[in-house]
């Protein structure tokens, strides 16, 4: 889904979709950075 389509489905503003996706990706990376490093990702710190 695009940001616009996601906003429509969830009944939230597009800006909220964008910021939630960003926070979710950052949080997911925070949880998985050890795993990422273990399979070769070399820039684990953000």
């Amino acid at each position, binding site marked *: 889904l695009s*940001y616009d389509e996601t906003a429509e489905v*969830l009944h939230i503003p597009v800006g*909220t979709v*964008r*910021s*939630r*996706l*960003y*926070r*979710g*990706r*950052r*949080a*997911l*990376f*925070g*949880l*998985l*950075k*050890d795993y*990422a*490093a*273990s399979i070769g*990702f070399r*820039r*684990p*710190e*953000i």
Partner: protein
Amino acid sequence: MTGPSGTPMHYGEELQDFLDETLTDARRAEVAAHLETCARCRRELDALRWVKVEASKDVGEAELPADLSARVRAALDTEDKSSVATTISRRKWIAASALVAAALLIVFLRGHKVTLPDRVAAAFRAYDTGVMPLEFESSDPKAIEAYFARNGITFETRVFDLGMMQYHLVGGRVHRLDDDRRISALFAYRGPGARKLVCQMFQGTVAELPRTDDVREHNGIRFHVYGEGNVTLVFWQEGDTLCVLTSDAPADDVVQLAFAKAVRA
């Protein structure tokens, strides 16, 4: 890029827009120019890209908890409200973020089969970071073996004395290894340079292990070696018991410790 006071600025959400190609051409060029000179933003973009690529892999079908969607929505709503409140509860914000991340993680991990080495490495990290404390502190192998016998470990354990190799016993815990409610006798050592070494013994076989190209033989015992980041894991079989040493020490040191203590069943 600098802020009004001349301090360095960094792109946050716009890095995601850059990645998702939703910026205008002019804005995209600005971000690209900034990335040339800003290592911090490059690192963040790389991390966001990694998550996007991993999340888009075919993870197969997974059945999610029925209330997951509602819980994620509730956590997000709480987080959004608290972010505009005049007094932001940082603890609540972190809890909400963690729940969202955990939900994403469930989806992610369901598609990546969690292997036995993954679980053992996770236990090591949990101990190493203080998340998972020992239950019984002692430097006496026999006392720790007795603790295991008193606390639900039904198989015979063999807690090693590694003092000659500069690893000193710290204590142990009865650890829940996996979803099958299998329990493990876990005991820990402190080694040279504050290195940590964790041993686990549990009922299992090497047939449960994923394939590894690093299998070594010593005194008629086969040792299965895995690396997970800076952590080395060495598994071997003793009767019905699977043993594993886990440490952030150099890989060959961990292998030598296993060679020294493994016995043929």
